[in-house]
């Protein structure tokens, strides 16, 4: 509720609900704490202004209510931490969905675009090498590699299948970018030289913006791409279309 009041974007991923829930609790905690403190603060300021209370009391507040207050704060924070935050992160980084269940996509950033690399039908990424990189082969796919014969690469559009987990293997060619998809409640830096997996499970079909979440140069603000959450048929159609475009020879042979 508080989240909505603050205008949070709608959620489109499974774990997003948990994130939202946690954020909601944080905000309630902050609101109550802030309101309590604020009320006390305003009361003190009003009640003890010198015109009304010309003589100050050397001893001030007595008793230890405030110690209890502080202990409560600590307890609430600790429970948020131990009850939600830590387990959640543990799940996200350890329980990465397996090969069979999830779709794997490589997301490779460059100034100022995203390349999304799909395995194609065989489920295996083709070999890549820096030597093969050209403008038309931005990921340096080895043309001789069998596993790469059915791979496809899409620019600035990530197609995923509704309800099926996606593991993004995020990396970058030049500087640090970040894949941030507010609707999916995820973000991960794209660090050159490192490939980091990050996963989510979309639960609502639609087209959502992917933000480049790290300053990457003058074009950073416009490095926008989209994630398209589709059903299986739409996805297959997309895959086929791209395959025909990127492997004209193979298509012709068939």
């Amino acid at each position: 509720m508080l989240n909505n009041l603050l205008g949070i974007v709608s959620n489109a991923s499974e774990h997003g609900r948990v994130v939202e829930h946690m954020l909601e609790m944080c905000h309630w905690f902050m609101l109550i704490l802030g309101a309590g403190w604020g009320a006390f603060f305003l009361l003190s300021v009003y009640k003890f202004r010198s015109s009304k209370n010309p003589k100050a009391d050397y001893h001030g507040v007595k008793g230890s209510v405030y110690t209890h207050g502080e202990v409560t704060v600590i307890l609430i924070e600790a429970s948020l931490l131990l009850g939600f935050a830590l387990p959640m992160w543990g799940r996200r980084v350890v329980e990465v969905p397996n090969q069979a269940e999830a779709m794997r996509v490589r997301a490779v950033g460059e100034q100022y675009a995203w390349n999304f690399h799909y395995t194609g039908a065989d489920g295996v990424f083709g070999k890549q090498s820096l030597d093969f990189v050209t403008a038309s082969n931005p990921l340096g796919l080895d043309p001789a590699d069998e596993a790469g014969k059915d791979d496809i690469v899409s620019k600035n559009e990530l197609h995923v299948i509704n309800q099926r987990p996606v593991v993004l293997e995020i990396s970058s060619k030049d500087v640090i970018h970040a894949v941030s998809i507010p609707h999916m409640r995820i973000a991960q830096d794209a660090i050159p030289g490192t490939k980091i997996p990050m996963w989510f499970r979309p639960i609502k079909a639609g087209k959502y913006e992917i933000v480049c979440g790290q300053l990457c140069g003058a074009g950073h603000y416009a490095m926008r791409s989209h994630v398209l959450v589709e059903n299986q048929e739409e996805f297959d159609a997309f895959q086929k279309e791209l395959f025909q475009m990127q492997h004209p020879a193979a298509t012709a042979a068939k």
Partner: protein
Amino acid sequence: MATIAPVEHGHHVGTDPHGEHHHPELGFWQKYVFSTDHKVIGVQYGVSGLLFLFFGFLLMLVMRWQLANPGLPVPVVGEALKGVFGPTVMTDAGALTASGYNVFGAMHGTIMVFFGIVPLAVAGFGNYVVPLQIGAPDMAFPKLNMASYWCFFTSGVLMMGSFFVPGSAAKSGWTAYPPLAGIADLEGGNIWLNGQTVWLVAMVFNITGSLLGSINFITTIIQLRAPGLTWMRLPFFVWAQFVTAFLLVLAFPPLEAAGFMQLTDRVFGTSFFMPTGLMIGQKVAQSWSGGGSPILWQHLFWFLAHPEVYVLILPAIGIVTEIVANNARKPIHGYKPMVYSLFGLGFLSFIVWAHHMYMTGMGAKVAAFFQITTIMISVPSVILLTSLILSLWGGSIRFNTPMLFATAFLPMFGIGGLTGIPLAFNAVDLFLHDTYYVIGHFHYVVAPGTIFGLFAGVYFWYPKATGRKMNEFLGKVHFWTSLVFINGIFFPMFIQGMAGVHRRWYDGGATYEQLTAPVLHWNQFMTVSAALLAVAQLPFIFNFFTSWKLGQKVGRNPWDATTLDWDTPTPPPHGNFDKPLEVFRGPYEYSVPGHPVDFHPQTQRN
């Protein structure tokens, strides 16, 4: 030494006729420019800090214009800006370019943090007030003190000069993350004379200045306390400076090391932060041998930069504490827990740094560690803030200008601090990282937080430094307008952040139609608030300069305060004190039951 006879003295409001000193007159240069007197150096630092703050604010005004009106020429001054900053930064029509936006953003952050707040809060107030409050004739190493300022000055000149090198100043954020910062401005340019390289060199000078200053502070506080001024009788501001100085001494050097490394990456082609196979355009970058790690920079940077944020806030908390005690006319509630909290904060701030790096792919163990420490660090902050709020209870609060700013500091810091809590949780930070929510979080702590604290300090100690008070009416105008407009800038940031608006966007988010549609209109509101905030500073600037000559004259102790800084002639002479000192009690003995007046100075025997 301990047996020296304590000196009786009575009520000592009013100037001391014997205040002037008996030293040989120094020339102008020695007295005001290359001075080793802590007060002169304090004023030098303070005024430099204020000017840099103002400049950083002006940069931000141009940026805020751009955010609200993407691509439109800056009104009135657009042409002039083009003339000054050149074509990288401004278009012919006088609008900010995308590079220019990044230049201004990086420089706003750098200038505000390292050239504005730290010099004003730590070095300015620290230099001026600390020796006075502990009853010392000067800092422990006066020459080093001077060297510190001139190191800082050099770094300031370099940093400002960097606007005028080819390609303009640094444009990779104040965080200067490589590889972006490593490759910036190198192609075709001069490897030495370009924004990022000059930024690094300037930072090395800045850091050196800070280190010299901090060593001096710590030594001074340990060695030069007046007799009887035991540790638990120190004014809280001194404690705050003490811990701050330790943060600087121990956290800055790793950044200095990192600065050297980025420098050699840029000029000697080493690859500390450059991974193998880096491609620029579609070509493998041959200038680096590879094998480095961009993440290493982030570790070394945040190892400093997290303690640095406490460097920004602690002096302000110290100032606010002084002013709250003085104007509530009662002792601080929980002085000792506050001191322990300071140490807690100081200690913990060294082991939380990776909460800025949740996005870099950390595993469950490391993430758990840093989340736990980050949550732990909020506890001492809560104690500090709670103690301050409780200190108001039962007081007889005088709402003069310093007190207004100090009072407003409390809820403002509260909002900033509270919004830090969701960020501390890794899984939530996934959603909020690098959005305007973060920008809102930290501006609440640094702008209406720290800056208000510093304004309070300026109004409070101005009479000590100049012998005249600043105008109360103008002060109140300054306060109320600033309070309203500054919230007008920063509160909407939380709303934008929740909607997914990210920082460092040249067009304020116009490209991302889907995300920003519901909240884009706030940009206008915030920008107008920022402009009005600028107008609201005019009374302050006017007041600051005119009161120097025209303000109401005051004596030694215009605020009826208890600490030693109010026990010197106003303004204090070279050597500071005109009488032997001995301290008999804690710093905030206000409204002591049975005492005839409502304040009991530390030096008064009974």
